[in-house]
């Protein structure tokens, strides 16, 4: 019989970065944007000429600036997690604030980009490419705004000394959400400024 068989190996428990709740939120956002990407692909399939020429009129410098701001802000959150793991709370606070300030550059650039667009006749009714562009990028801006509110929250809690090397799951959860908005922008940027 198999009574002498070795007991089953314990299942390897790997950590859930942050907390389970934030991953439910992140996966919902990924599903939402996958559907929005389908809108982009279907619109492009039906109007290839509009999508081939559409990016020419957009200010690609704005897209590049947003990408660099988000990547650098994300880097600051990486450093924030590194420092809190060493229990360097003051440095952690500085990194979170840096991430927040860089992240706030996103809506700032977006404001000037939209103002520039409108001055050049590029509004939501300028054609199917621009309708999809506003639909997806403004949707992303909404999610980034939630991320910025999250960064405000964890900055305040870091200042209050809530996080330590023993417990920083809230800070890590905010970082995970922030990075996920970064991943989505890395897809949106080539869709509207590069691909033709």
């Amino acid at each position, binding site marked *: 019989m198999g009574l002498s068989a070795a007991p089953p190996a314990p299942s390897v428990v*790997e*950590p*859930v*970065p942050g907390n389970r709740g934030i*991953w439910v939120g992140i*996966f919902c956002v*990924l599903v939402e944007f*996958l559907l929005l*990407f*389908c809108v982009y*692909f*279907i619109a*492009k*399939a*039906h109007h*290839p000429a509009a999508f*081939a020429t559409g*990016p020419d009129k957009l200010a*690609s*410098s704005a*897209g*590049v600036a947003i*990408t*660099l701001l988000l*990547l*650098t802000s*994300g*880097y600051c*959150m*990486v*450093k924030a*997690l*590194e420092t809190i*793991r060493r229990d360097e709370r003051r440095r952690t606070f500085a990194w979170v604030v840096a991430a927040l300030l860089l992240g706030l550059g996103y809506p700032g650039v977006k404001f000037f980009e939209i103002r520039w667009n409108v001055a050049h006749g590029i509004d939501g009714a300028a054609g199917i490419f621009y309708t999809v562009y506003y639909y997806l990028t403004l949707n992303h801006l909404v999610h980034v705004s939630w991320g910025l509110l999250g960064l405000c929250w964890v900055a305040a809690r870091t200042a209050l000394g809530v996080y330590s090397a023993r417990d920083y799951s809230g800070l890590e959860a905010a*970082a*995970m959400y922030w*990075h*996920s908005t*970064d*991943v989505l922008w*890395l*897809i949106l*940027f*080539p869709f509207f*400024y*590069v*691909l*033709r």
Partner: protein
Amino acid sequence: MTLTSPPGRAEKVWLLLVALTLAGAWLAETGQPGWPLTLVVAALIAVKGRLVIDRYMGITRAHPRIRRILHGFVTLVPLLVIFSHGWGNLLQRLTTLH
């Protein structure tokens, strides 16, 4: 980043992401419609997405289900980019209401 990231790794990843972004910016100014641009963009999405997921988020040591979903996401989207370019007519037919 993983808990045991060697010093300077975050900086190297950030520099690589910036370099890839600037490459994308160059493509935005000079790229012409066609397969080369489509394939390069698909590769950029896949590489940058994996860098953020694996190095920024430190997902390589996370639960396999989380890892598979995130890796699947940044693999699926580039494949959709390629599909929509190469098989746009098919996609158009499939999504036309008769």
